[in-house]
């Protein structure tokens, strides 16, 4: 049972780290927009500009 004198303080350190991490997340606005973040995983991450081309019949100013 003596091990609890070591294990519980270690658990408390992890708790403190968890709270610190949570505070960091709150301060960095991680919780400000819960709608967009939830859907963003549905979108592709990798975007390679210029892989597709578009042609306009009337003008091609680009």
């Amino acid at each position, binding site marked *: 049972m003596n091990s609890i004198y070591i294990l519980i303080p270690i658990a408390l350190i992890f708790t403190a780290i968890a709270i610190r991490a949570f505070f960091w997340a*709150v301060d960095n606005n991680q919780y400000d927009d819960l709608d967009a973040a939830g859907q963003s995983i549905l979108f592709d991450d990798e975007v390679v*500009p*210029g892989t597709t081309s578009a042609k306009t019949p009337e003008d091609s100013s680009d």
Partner: protein
Amino acid sequence: MLQKTVADEVVCFHCGLPVASGERFCAELNGVQNHFCCPACRAVATTIVDCGLSSFYQFQTQSMRAVNQNVHDDTFSLFDDLEFQTRFVSVDDDDSRYVSCDLLIEGMHCTACVWLLEKYIDALPGVETVNVSFNEQRAAIKWKTETVCLSVIVAAINRLGYTAEPFTTDLLQDSRIRENHLALRRLGVAGIAMMQVGMFAIALHAGALQGIEVEYRDFIRWISLLVAAPVVLYSAQPFFIGAWRGAVLKKPGMDLPVAIAIGLAFSASCRATVSGEGDVYFDSVTMFTFLLLLGRYLEMRARHYSGRISSNLSSLLPSTAIRFTSLSANAAMEQHGETQAIPVYQIAVGDRVLVKSGQVIPVDGTIVSGESSVNEAQLTGEFMPKFKAVGDVVVAGTVNGDGVLTIDVSAVGKNLQIESINTLISKAQNRKPRIAQIADQFAGFFVTAVLAFSLFTYIFWTYVAGGEHADRAFWIMLSVLVVSCPCALSLATPAALTAAGNRLRTHGVLVTEPQVWEKIKTITDVVFDKTGTLTKGELSLLATKPIGPISSERCVEIASALESFSNHPIASVFSSVKGAGVDVKNVTICTGEGLQGTVNDELYRIGRSDYASRLYDHNVAVSAIAPGLGQWILMSNSKGPVCWFQLQDSLRDDAQELVSMLQGRNYKTHLVSGDSSGEAQLLSEKLEMDNCVAGASPQEKVDYFRALQSEGAKVMILGDGINDIPVLAEADVSIAMSNASSLAKTHADCILLSGNLTSVAILMQLAKSTRKIIKQNIAWAVAYNLLVIPLAMLGLIPPYIAAVGMSLSSLVVILNALRLQGFGNTDQSSAMQSSVLQGQLS
């Protein structure tokens, strides 16, 4: 709303609007030929696809709005002006090469827009980070000043079809963000600590059953104390502050027993820990705090969500304007004079500004040259643009139509008309009476009673019972406080309201004022606004009266072909008809009058009767007389008048259904409209409404309500547009339609996002079941307390059972409230649900 696709109708690939004239604007995107309604939409779509972002079109849940025609504009360079930038751009503290700013993005409609904006702006060279928030319609951008300038970024945003303006944080928004962060921190600390203390409590309970050495027990208790302390001292602060405020004002609220119970249980547990005698309740303390904070956090989020749209009318105004650098005496030359884009705050009275077509007018003023149709929908709620010419007054916040205007500034800043409307709004809000909630009154009584009971219990067990019972007195008193914790009572109302609010949100109804639930019961009269509420705010063709030999079908075809060249709302009336075999040439548009063009070698005019009749008869005095009341336009050729068209704002599909339903339930229905054309009366008769007031100014509308209210009526209003806001604030319950301008949304008690009028029926039904659930909850809470408080006073309930009972009691209340969100509905409401569903699908 789903786009109706008629078999041969082509819709714009970008904005989903019907393409009027076939193949005028098309582009090949990803190997497929797509059609667009205008060059601006095509430019935006081409930009999006060129950057490999075409999956935007797969993910978007709604079609884009039509793109502002001024995609390319020279005012962007102003964003690089250092003095202009000082107002919203900040230099990075660590590295001065980086600067950041917040931009207000207009035109975002779903989270796919967030993705599109982030990807596109992030790909610009020099942009360090970009963070777009859909909730706040805001983009936080950080960039390197050497590589890229702000005007490039703003121009890029415009290329995607959005508009960017400096984001000015008002105090309200700032305080909301701070409140949200603080609540989250408190909740997080309570949650994490609750889990830790809960685990230690299991060890302690198991130890109590199996036997645990005092040394280990005390160690675990001390650790529990250490973990629970931040919960009580930090997370539970709002309860202590609330309790203190209540005590000072001598109005003890729900916070007082919560604070006393938390405080007493914690200090008693601390005492037990120090002395090694008695029980500890750290788990109850933390769990209780966490659950209450969670309820409050959810409530706060719902409150902020509804108020996220800007709370100030001034945000309608642009931040830049184009000023003439020198006042030229020659008025005809104005539009070719030297101009310069400057920030709006530098404009002074007497300046002369240029407003291009499609721009928002930045100041109040008088037109000195040019003519145009000006859309004042933002101010008046009336969608029909008004024709304005030299000498007419224009108001800041309204949108210039197809002409170019030169304006002499008559008012800026605080003197703008829009500001006086703001003042009117805040006055109306202050006049709103605060109805004291019955629950609060009862809570005060209840709290006092509980405190008295616990004190009585303590005295009884210490002095009357005496002896060995005296040791138990403190713990029995705590039992009374814990078991009677008005948790269930204080959760009864907010839990039901939150659940009902969530349920309504799935129907596209937002409730911003919690008192609606109670007030809706007392409603006796329902007042409707006309334009945009009962009607769609879109014109449609009511009647066609040909005068000559040409058939009415042919007339509509010719009109359609002519009008396809116009952007005026009237043109949309004809857009559903294809002008087959009609060849139109030489089209000229006369703003505010109509347009003319050559159809099959014959010159036609369509528009106002005096304009069209001038084509065949130059004597304007005998202009054609419209064949009836209402809004008529005339089509003519050189031989004479050809055809009359009667236009009408079309009725919403479910307007009749709602009005009959309300009358079936013995509500009085009224129609109050600012429209004086006689259409209001016609509509009122058609819907068989009880009363009708047409041509009413906002003040007259307010007076009408006051008259109704002084007769004892409780009034619910369905409205739209900013001139309704003082009126909305005056009503007992106000409901705004989804297409109401953003401000009307913020100030109404309810917002119909779906645009379905039948949602009102759902709201009323749900309000009824919500009241029922609240009553059940309160009944349960009261019955529970009446049962357990005497038991606890008798010393029959040990504190840990009391804590379990308290938690179970609040759980019952929450689960009962959740029935509102889920399936436990009556047949009536599910029938209404299905009718609304059908309405959405059709």
